[in-house]
């Protein structure tokens, strides 16, 4: 038998129909929806008199526009209110489960899928959101789709897809202390560029990946899309199985043991061929900070803001020039000399319990710097929020001068009231630093949770390795 990659295995087991030279019809095991990209899909179904084929495999949540402040208060944003009402109505009419903003299971769609055990190895998962790649951390084929495709999945529980090329990303060695999953993925994107993975599905491997917790693996897979690959996956192992056991939607008892036996087959065979391979040595990775307006514009905290003329390609020169103008940065400025106005620890990249624990450990007994206007902690889900509160993390953060909020996308995208004001600079644990992403004319620097916490304490970027980083996963 020819050796297969993990991607090929999952793909092959999901083909419903295939004709030569045509894209295949593949089955979708779990469909996640949210208030932002689903209303037009339901409207389309209605217009054609079509029904949701498998409401039992569809899960809905409110996350993008929800307030992270007191939810017993009325929603002020009328457009957001209409979105919530539309999602509620669509779910009620079609029988789709909804985690509305008052549910104790509510959270960011890519956080609650794994947390509730909806996400399982070997599945195909889609969502009208590009960071669906997160779920690949479980050895799952998961990717973002557009609203027309959401409508297609609602109607057919299938998707028309062509096979992708495969990209093997091997991260050798051990991560140094203070270097997190976020730094690894930022370094990878810096290396391959934001279009480097276009047309590919990535599989992460190597010692540095294997040693990550599920929380860390999700951080890596989450940002796969920032390197252009639509999906990223990690073969499931004991870490994965231990994480899943006992989660609400995961089979129990004998069914779970049988599932594990099946899941153990989910790995790339020895000798399986990838279309492209990228290698990285974890020992050589330092904490990363983005300086520009896309996640590939990134460097080590020990470096300086680059000079546009240091790039060979004319398009790169122009892009760097305009990014530095937008960011209000001068070439040659040491990264650690860049002051920060606001700190945001949250988003589907870095708002899980590991992230909050590491950040809390770092700020315990310290206080945010005077120049910091706001330091936000936004847990990825209400489940994480409750777990963190049980450990007393909320208290540590509050005492250090952070705001402790309710779960949602928040300042990652600024669709609710958590917006980064014009020309202000953030240290943010989210995944995109595009122009205007966190607010019009806002300036985003992407970092790991401990780097964000350290910046909050120092008032500017600082090499987190100067702090006690023993707790850093």
């Amino acid at each position, binding site marked *: 038998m020819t050796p297969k990659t993990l991607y090929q295995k999952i793909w092959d087991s999901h083909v419903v129909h295939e004709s030569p030279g045509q894209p295949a019809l593949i*089955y979708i095991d779990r469909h996640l929806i949210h208030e932002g990209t689903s209303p037009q899909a339901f409207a389309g179904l209605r217009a054609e008199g079509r029904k949701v084929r498998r409401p039992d495999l569809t899960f809905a949540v409110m996350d993008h526009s929800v307030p992270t402040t007191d939810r017993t208060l009325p929603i002020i944003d009328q457009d957001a209110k209409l979105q919530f009402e539309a999602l509620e109505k669509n779910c009620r009419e079609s029988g789709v489960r909804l985690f509305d903003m008052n549910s104790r299971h509510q959270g960011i769609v890519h956080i609650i899928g794994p947390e509730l055990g909806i996400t399982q190895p070997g599945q195909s998962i889609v969502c009208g959101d590009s960071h669906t790649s997160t779920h690949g951390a479980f050895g799952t084929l998961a*990717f973002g789709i557009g609203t027309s495709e959401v409508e297609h999945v609602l*109607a057919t529980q*299938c998707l028309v897809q062509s096979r992708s090329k495969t990209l093997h990303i091997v991260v050798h060695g051990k991560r140094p202390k203070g270097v997190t999953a976020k730094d690894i993925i930022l370094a990878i994107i810096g290396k391959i560029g934001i279009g480097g993975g276009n047309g590919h599905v990535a599989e992460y491997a190597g010692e540095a990946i294997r040693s990550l917790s599920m929380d860390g693996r999700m951080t890596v897979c989450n940002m796969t*899309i920032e390197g252009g690959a639509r999906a990223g996956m990690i073969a499931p192992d004991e870490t994965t199985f231990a994480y899943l056991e006992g989660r*609400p939607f995961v089979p129990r008892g004998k069914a779970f043991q049988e599932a594990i036996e099946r899941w153990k087959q989910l790995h790339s065979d020895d000798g399986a061929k990838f279309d492209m391979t990228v290698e990285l040595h974890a020992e050589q990775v330092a904490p990363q900070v983005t300086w520009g307006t896309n996640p590939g514009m990134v460097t080590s905290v020990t470096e300086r803001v680059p000079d546009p003329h240091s790039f060979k390609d004319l398009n790169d020169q122009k*892009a760097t020039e305009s990014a530095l103008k937008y960011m209000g940065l001068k070439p040659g400025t040491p990264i650690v000399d860049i002051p920060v106005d606001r700190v945001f620890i949250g988003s589907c990249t870095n708002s899980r319990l590991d992230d909050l624990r590491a950040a809390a450990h770092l700020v315990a007994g310290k206080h945010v710097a005077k120049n910091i206007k706001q330091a936000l902690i936004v847990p990825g889900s209400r489940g994480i929020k409750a777990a963190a509160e049980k450990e007393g993390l909320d208290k540590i953060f509050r005492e250090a001068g952070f705001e402790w909020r309710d779960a949602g996308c928040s300042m990652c*995208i600024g669709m609710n009231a958590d917006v980064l004001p014009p020309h202000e600079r953030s240290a943010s644990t989210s995944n995109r630093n595009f*122009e205007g992403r966190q607010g019009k004319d806002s300036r985003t620097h992407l970092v790991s949770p401990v780097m964000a916490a350290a910046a909050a304490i120092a008032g500017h970027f600082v090499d987190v390795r100067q702090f006690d980083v023993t707790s850093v996963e």
Partner: protein
Amino acid sequence: MQPFTTHTGMGAPVDRVNVDTDQMVPKQFLKALTREGFGRILFYDWRYLPGEKPNPEFVLNFPRYKGASVLLTRANFGCGSSREHAPWGVKDYGFRVIIAPSYADIFYNNCFKNGILPATLPEDQVDELFKRTEKEEGYSLTVNLPNQTIADKHGLILQFEIAPSRKEVLLKGLDDIGTSLQHGAEITAYEKAHAATATMYEPLDIKYYSNGR
């Protein structure tokens, strides 16, 4: 969906690499409940000054590019968010064709759901089209999908690439969902065959989760 065969129209150059979908339709417009009206919003933060005054420095606001329907741009166009609001904006603005050296995957896919042709040409040919568009006012291109050509009035003919199955979707204006539903029996058969391993545990305490439960 509106079929696409040939199109002739004026080109407009957006000379940037890695244009992301956040730039095409910023987040404050993602709360809409319909697919309409995104043309006014396309490239919002570049196109408008405070108070929605057109920014005279943004290329699409140059009077000479008014009415353009062929968008010329650079590599990795449409990266970032999966929001289909971006192609809705492109289409509603009046563009039927995009020409670029490469596209981000999700955006590329979304174009075909909306009758937009994203044509791919090598970098140097895109460069040449940029030069000609900027030099000659009203520079227009004829895009022929059956022949996969892009031509101007001066005899330039370029061959672009597109997968045959993608081409067919545009040429026939196919409704994907309708086509897939014809495989209903196969979908049901797949569901039956995989029922045993596709199961999930149904937690009794979580059914329909609303109002704080």
